[in-house]
């Protein structure tokens, strides 16, 4: 019974770690995509300005 209990505690910890990792990676991906979108838009606006001049 003790072994079973400990195994469950271990599995619980592993699941929590996995959950946190996945959330972190998802957020990182979204932040990187946001940054790329922003930078590309900025670059295009600068270009439009330069071309008008």
């Amino acid at each position: 019974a003790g072994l079973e209990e400990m195994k469950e505690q271990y599995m619980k910890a592993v699941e929590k770690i996995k959950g946190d990792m996945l959330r972190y990676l998802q957020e990182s991906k979204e932040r990187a995509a946001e940054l790329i979108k922003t930078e590309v838009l900025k670059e295009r606006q600068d270009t439009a300005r330069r071309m008008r001049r």
Partner: protein
Amino acid sequence: TTRFLEEETLRSQELLQRLDAHIQSMKLENSNTVCKY
């Protein structure tokens, strides 16, 4: 990119703290189980 990396570093430090908390929690639960049996 620099700012992005700085923020990522901060976020990963927070993540690390959370992981450590889960590990400590498991360690405590394991110890309690050992004592119990």
